[in-house]
């Protein structure tokens, strides 16, 4: 399947969860927040939240800003 992650198409073998996506993107252990089809998913639910083909996902972190 293909997910739209941060505006970019990302292939991911189905079935998968948000946790699986984070691992596949080599982002494991980082402090992140995820929006899944415009809904924020708490970190505690990543491993039980399935993702489906064409889902829109935003993954953000804190960076320098004023």
């Amino acid at each position, binding site marked *: 399947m293909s997910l739209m992650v941060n505006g*970019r198409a990302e292939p991911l073998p189905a079935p998968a969860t948000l946790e699986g996506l984070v691992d596949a993107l080599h982002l494991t252990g*980082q*402090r992140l927040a995820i929006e899944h089809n415009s809904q924020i998913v708490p970190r505690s639910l990543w491993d039980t939240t399935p993702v489906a083909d064409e889902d829109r996902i935003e*993954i953000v*972190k804190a*960076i*320098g800003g*004023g």
Partner: protein
Amino acid sequence: MSDTLTIAGKIYSSRLLVGSGKYASFAQNAEAADASGAEIVTVAIRRVNLGQDASAPNLLDFIRPDRYTLLPNTAGCYTADDAIRTCRLARELLDGHRLVKLEVLGDPKTLYPDITATLEAAKVLVQEGFEVMVYCTDDPIQCKRLEEIGCVAVMPLAAPIGSGLGIQNRYNILTIVENAKVPIIVDAGVGTASDAAIAMELGCDGVLMNTAIAEAKNPVLMASAMRHAIIAGREAFLAGRMPMRRYASASSPIAGVIG
């Protein structure tokens, strides 16, 4: 003398708030934040770069949430919806953290606030339980409206973001301060230490700055200068300045002059 700043019920001893953008390195950012004495540091919320090295350093390893009160901002948002989404993401990212810096911008050239959209976003965020510190124009009426909505601090610009032009309309800032029941923090436009001191002498409760420190030739030294300027300006405000006179008033006694 105890002279503290309270924002959303939390007490701070420093009245200087600093940003974390534009530094040459995270290490320089951390050193400048330390030299500034600031207790509140702004951060931005952005998409992660996919494909990046997972072991790359992270801002929050240097500006540590256990040392500083982080103030996630909505910089770069041009609509109320984007600003609201960014705040929600920040709350999730920072484990339920409710303090945010709301800014909704009008155009990329001036980075001037879109006040209509800012008011709209502030209402929603306050209803959702956020503690909103709001970046806005130096317009006394809009500042009052934002206070009435329930913002925990109102942060008028002194001049455009990153311009370093200093306080362009000190009479407006004075009026905003006089009207306010929440902390007024000058946010944006400060260029050097005297600008920060002037803001504090006008009675502002604090100053938030980023570029003035980060783009100084020596950011760490400028951070220290700003720390002192904020303290000096605050003490001068509390002390109450002498009146201005058009003509001289001799400091030494007139009586007993030789001759």
